[in-house]
């Protein structure tokens, strides 16, 4: 590619930190900026930030997607924040707080022995371009849900 070459590189990793597995997993999704440049991510609380995170639960050959339920907005503004290089950003989650939905009841989907994957997907948009928000998709490594009683 011709032209200016950036001296910075973007490198991101995503992981799930489960703090509680009962009755449904709760914890944080952690985005680590391991690159040399700051990146911008959407804040939650608006239609841009509330739709970037989802989960996939796999058991055997079946995979079910879990998404956040539509939220009520009164001030719906795309709001972003910077994640400096070498730092992390956490999104707390609780699949049991009634804010998540799937094609089947979560209690039947998120069961011991299943594998949970977090997906961070930011589609391109004029707002993302305006604010320099990183766009793309990354996935966490699977987390095996606890089999112990």
């Amino acid at each position, binding site marked *: 590619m011709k032209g200016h070459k950036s001296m910075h590189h973007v490198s991101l990793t995503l992981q799930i930190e489960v703090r509680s597995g009962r009755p449904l997993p709760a914890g944080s999704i952690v985005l680590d900026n391991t690159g040399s440049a700051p990146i911008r991510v959407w804040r939650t609380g608006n239609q841009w930030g509330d739709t970037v995170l989802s989960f996939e639960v796999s058991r055997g050959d079946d995979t079910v997607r879990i998404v956040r339920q539509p939220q009520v*907005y009164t001030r*719906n*503004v795309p709001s972003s924040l910077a994640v400096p290089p070498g730092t992390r950003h956490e999104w707390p989650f609780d699949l049991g707080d009634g804010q998540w939905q799937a094609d089947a009841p979560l209690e039947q989907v998120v069961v011991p022995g299943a594998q949970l994957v977090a997906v961070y997907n930011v589609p391109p948009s004029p707002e993302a371009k305006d604010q320099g928000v990183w766009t793309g998709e990354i996935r966490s490594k699977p987390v095996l849900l606890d089999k112990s009683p």
Partner: protein
Amino acid sequence: MRTFAYKPRATQPTTSAKSTTPGLAPVGQARDRNPILNLQRTLGNQAVQRLLEENRGKGKDDSTALQAQPAAGAIGRSATAAGATSTRNVSGDVSQDEVVTTNGTPAPAPGATPASPPPPAAPSTADGQCYVNSGPTYTPSGAIPVTTSGGRKRATFSMAATFGTALVTVPPRRPRCCEVRQYIKWDSAFHTWRGGPPHSGFPSSATANTWYEDRDTSDKRYGHRSGPHSDPAPGFDEYLTGGTQDQANGDTYRGSDAPGGPASMVGQFQFQLKVIDTCNGDAVKASSGIITINWGSPPPAPAPGVTPPSPAPPATP
């Protein structure tokens, strides 16, 4: 439109006799507070007179209009009168049950005028004042259309306001003194459907049919130039000067909102904008008309227990 209010007596140099009158400021204070006097002393009366004549007869609302003001001793009365008349209500439909919240002061009822001239007030000590050139306005106005897509309802509208600059007024008109606020009120049908306020940014004790300053779940709010509630975003919540974002001093406000929720949402939201003067105790300077979003009606309640008719008695032969 420009305006020019020339009050030659007020701009004449104050005599020493007048300066000793109770309520009048000493000449030294007048020098500090009245730029017209300063201009006269610097340029001479004729030069200032020419400058004033050039502006005579021009429109009233030009943000750069040169306005002569009374000398220091009359500032208090003038400021009071100006304050009473410059609080504009664009639509005149401010409701009577508003506002209740932090940083929100209700606008005076439309058309409310004092029964008698306001008493003289102390000279203003503010280093600036907010002057609203236009707005605040919503586009569209009135009832906002609702769209449903992908299992969500949404209504989109934009906001606008402009503010004046005039350094020769007392206090000077400074756009940085003007800040926009958006207020929201939801009705009982929505509150019942939701089981409380719209989201966690509002206190759980928030009630229906009450005006609150709008916010998101992070307690970010429209129009705050700085501070913990400030969250400027290009095209959605920003101040500009000459088309360039200027959060601190911008003379133009531009905003956009797209409230919404699940397709099952019912009830009504109402919004209203106000411009407040942060240099003068957050006084409300202008208000927009109220816009209304009807999310839909709740499903009809089941009919009250209708008991089936008692079986007909067996027919007797």
